[in-house]
């Protein structure tokens, strides 16, 4: 048994203890939160239908393989599996697109394979760089983001490399 298998049980135990001893109305809180999750997952469907149609076509046409082959000289040199090429390109652009591609990686290579674990760590430690930058800058009313985007992309690339190195060492 690995220690990581205990993460969720420990979180759930802490949650349960809190609920048993809390004087708040934890049941109502839980249900209203869970409803938000329900809506979140349901509202994903329309976008995902579009994206997974595209992603399925991309795999079936052989384009995904071609893209991997095209980028493999670069990716292999830095220790990143070339099968992840489509995921790496879409990750900074669209969150649901990345979800669609992550599913595709899991289906084709398995979630516990080296490729699957690399994809998991990359997805978990990155975000939609372009969207977040645009959102935060417009939220602040800034029109000149200066060095933000180059830095954000640099950090993302470091993240991809670091994820694969960590997986090689620890997983």
């Amino acid at each position, binding site marked *: 048994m690995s220690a*990581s298998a205990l993460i969720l049980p420990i979180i759930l135990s802490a949650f349960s203890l809190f609920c048993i001893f809390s004087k708040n109305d934890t049941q109502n809180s839980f249900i209203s939160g869970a409803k938000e999750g329900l809506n979140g997952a349901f509202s994903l469907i329309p976008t995902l239908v579009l*994206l997974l149609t595209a992603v399925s076509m991309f795999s079936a*046409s052989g384009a995904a393989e071609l893209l991997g082959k095209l980028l493999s000289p670069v990716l292999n040199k830095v220790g990143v599996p070339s099968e992840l090429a489509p995921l790496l390109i879409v990750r900074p652009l669209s969150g649901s697109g990345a979800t669609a591609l992550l599913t595709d990686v899991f289906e084709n290579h398995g979630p516990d394979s080296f490729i699957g674990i690399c994809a998991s760590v990359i997805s978990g430690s990155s975000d939609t760089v372009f969207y977040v930058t645009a959102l*935060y800058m417009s939220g602040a009313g800034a029109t000149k983001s200066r060095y933000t985007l180059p830095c954000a992309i640099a950090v993302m690339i470091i993240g991809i490399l670091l994820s694969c190195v960590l997986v090689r060492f620890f997983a």
Partner: protein
Amino acid sequence: MAIKISGVIIIISVICALFTGNANALTEAAISGGTRAVTVAFSLLPMMCLWCGIMKVAENGGILNAFSRLLSPILRLVFPKTAKSGEGVNEISTSLAANILGIGNAATPLALSATKKLGADKDGKAGSDLITFTLIGCAPPCLFPTTVVALRAASGSSDPTSIVPLVILCSFTLCVISIVLSRILAGGKR
């Protein structure tokens, strides 16, 4: 954005299929893709419900606020300009706390109220603190990647949470790198 991306992907796929002769498989894939979307959304559903429910209890129980108070002394070092004026430290720390705990729904509006407080210069230039905050938002530190874990479980992983320690290590390292990079580039202009 999703519609443009899928548009580009579909066109590339069709062109590619014409060359490789995989046209039959293409139609089949186009039809089955939608089914996969529904399967994925449904497989995410229980985990999303459970996590969002737990996090709502944590939020209402004051854990988000407590965690955000815990963060604020560190943030005063990372956002010197904001700390000096005192405006916006609370917003930044609550938004980061929500990000770290994986309360995605709450994180975005909180981040927006933080960016409002951070603001921009008169000529529309982003200040160094806003840039630091944006960089952290582009690679947010994360304690529990809900979607990834749920997708792994749905794909039949033997240990869906095995990646959690690596995600924590990687995302927090990236957060430190973002902060250091941003402080270096901000230079003397504080």
